[in-house]
């Protein structure tokens, strides 16, 4: 079947098998940041934005995305760059394999809730597994970013 999808701002028209999963589609179109960590909708590594809503691309049919916009980390480099350095300062990226999904969902969190509490951060990101970092370094990184951002806003008055 033919689908027309706005992938990272560019319109892509493709003839796809009806049972194709979104993760395989975006990877086939060069968005290699999107990772598969499980086959059971359990890890969050494959998170992409479907019409700006974070979803599991391993659990979404390409057909469902027809006529809609899909965004991967390739398309959100600038927005991600605002805060990922704070994660790097903690060394909490570690192996990095879970990073794209984690970064995408953090973007979604910060769009929805620009000044989350620690508990809100943990709850929103609970579907993003990480086996290396133990998570607390990622929280410190996000907290450091928010503190600096909001500190600056306070200074500006």
């Amino acid at each position, binding site marked *: 079947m033919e689908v027309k999808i706005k992938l990272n701002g560019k319109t892509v028209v493709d003839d796809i098998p009806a049972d194709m999963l979104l993760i395989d589609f975006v990877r086939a179109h060069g968005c290699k940041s999107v990772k598969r960590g499980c086959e059971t909708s359990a890890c969050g590594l494959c998170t992409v934005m479907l019409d700006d809503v974070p979803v599991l691309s391993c659990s979404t049919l390409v057909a469902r995305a027809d006529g809609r916009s899909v965004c991967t980390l390739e398309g959100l480099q600038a927005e991600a760059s605002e805060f990922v350095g704070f994660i790097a300062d903690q060394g909490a990226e570690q*192996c990095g394999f879970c990073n794209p999904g984690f970064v995408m969902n953090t973007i979604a969190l910060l769009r929805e809730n620009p000044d989350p509490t620690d508990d809100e951060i943990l709850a929103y990101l609970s579907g993003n597994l990480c086996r290396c970092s*133990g998570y607390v370094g990622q929280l410190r990184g996000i907290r450091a970013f928010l503190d600096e951002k909001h500190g600056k806003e306070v200074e500006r008055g």
Partner: protein
Amino acid sequence: MDKPEYRSVGKSVRKKDSLQLLLGKPVYTEDIAPDALVVKLLRSPHANAMVKTIDTSKAKKVPGVVDVYTWEDVPNQRFSNAGQTYPETSPYDRLIIDRHVRFVGDVVAIVAAENEKAAQTALSRIKVEYDVLEPVLDFRTAKDNPVLVHPEDNWHMLCDLGGDNTRNLVGTTSDAGGDIEAVLADCDVVLERTYHTKAYNQAMMETFRTFTQLDRYGRLHVISSTQIVYHVRRILSHALGIPKSRIRVEKPRIGGGFGAKQTAVCEVYPAFVTMKTGRPALCVFSRKESQTCGSPRHEMEVKVRLGANNDGRIRALGVTTLSNSGAYGEHGWATVGLTGHKSIPLYTGSLEAFKFDANVVYTNMQPSGAYRGFGATQGQFAVESAVNELAAKLGRDPVELREQNMVREGMAMPAYFGEMANACALDRCMQHCSDMFGWKDKFPVRDMGNGKVRAAGVAMSMQGSGISGIDVGSVTVKLNDDGGYMLLIAAADMGTGCDTILAQMVAEHMECPVDAVSVFGADTDASPYDSGSYASSTTYVTGMAVEKACTQLKERLCAIAAEELGCDAAELRFEGGCVRHEATGRTVSLSEIAAKSQCNCRLAPEATAQHSSPVSPPPYMVGMVEIELDRETGVVEVLDYAAVVDCGIPINPALARIQVEGGIVQGIGHTLMEDVTRTPKGAIRESSLFTYRLPTRLDTGRINVEFEHSYEPTGPFGAKSIGEIVINTPGPALAQAIYRATGVWHRELPILPEHILLAKPKE
């Protein structure tokens, strides 16, 4: 102790690959593999069976299928998948495909196809008739069982380590000091306890995967997610029967390893396909394959005999371990040794006698391998739990009891090959951790109402730093044209940050910014030989190779500068950015030296050095945990985890801290939620991340990590290791906290809410 002022070492430098990783760049095996044949494996549904007949004709007719291989197509030459220094301590017990399948998931056929769908279809079209045999599914009855896991004639070991395939034995080991029976007979209290831990899965986020192709010289080029490029080269050479010189193995970024990728779990299958077809091939394990056909921790049963006096002196420790290696013997003998050698020495303080015996057995279960902690985790769960039980029995505070008995700096450790504790801040770790955690306030059990109680537990730990007398680390350091440096390594950064840590060391030695050091690794065609990244070796062993290489490189740069200046190299001094002629004050910049080296020069501006250590200095650690336990549901919530680690001098404190935090969370997972159970036929039930529950960020509690420095004289800048020790304390500490809250000692992990609620207090 006076701490020298360092410019790069001891600094929390960002990982060199951090932004590439965080911004999702294509840096992993599957991202960079070009179009390739899809390699899929048909796996046995039986735990023990012979392939009677196998018909691949229908599978081969599926459009897009290139070929299907069975046991008839592979060499009958046994090899081991273990990533260990040659000659390996693991038995040569594998074929690429064996007619005799030995666990649920063992490989029956390899399918190579143009695409995923064709490969999947082909798998379903292969017709196999099995002669189903009785399996060995209880490791306690495996030894001398009439059912043999490896009855074949060509099973062999390169070293005599007690392995005997006619007895289902992978290996045996023992050690002793003093007369344990006599000392036990003289003790006021003797505890005999048996502990059991399971085959936990590393569950790294990137499953096993390998890409292979023939390069432009017709050599086999392997790009694999591995911790051991050189060992993989050897393993493929043995398995495929081709010379090592015809194989090149490199690793890109790795999506986690934790020891899983210290075994060549999947490399051989695409390599075989590429050798057969001449075409590029890619094999990516599904999560289910990773969970059920990987290389998890060895399941072990550890018996502890602990003798003490009423005054708290721990006088005798006996450890007897039975390890379940599963269907193949990778790392079996090596792993089990740590259950005794890394647990008993913690109590060197007043120990008069010790004894350690171990057997490693074959069963028809998933083969085990290396997992962070590598036997120390299992042994310490047992010994640390037994010491906590002793404290309860004697009515002693477990912190004070440990302070009375622990190993201290300057002691020789008879149960650790007689090694000296040259750098040991375990006592300070205990004190520091107690203060930071608030042990005195948190150890007493507190009733919070509504069925909930708070309680605490403690454990301590040691590990090693590399394998003494075996591991080899090598590096090449080269001067670049622009005055920066290139560091070539075969140690494997699997996210841990060793590329950056070793670069920090180069920067410190060469007196340059860390950014001026580029790192390349790991590639058997370009990197000097290194055992690889495992056994907590890279910082300590390869770090010393960096020190040696830098010393040599400085001399070499002075020699090149001496040619330029027309003087003797001995008159010159290396000063970081330049080389200075002491007498005249004349200097030659590094870029001038680099330019000189490229024109009419017989000296290469580079140095390669290799290191191996006769000792393996232990890092030490104390962990304390506070839980809230719901007595009506059995649910445990981790509130606070405090840890203080002595890893010598942390080269990169931020990365060291993350290691500790990550290890603790894995340990919490193994203790409270990750389980491995089997069906009566021997299949693993927890075959996905849906059923094998990893901790999420809601399950960890607050984690506070700090360091106590010691200075290890044989390590780079006083450093010891940190990668593995960090996983060891949660098991015993949590088990103690649960005992405090419920009155029941749980001696098997994991301790699930159900076990807690349904257990009845005994003593």
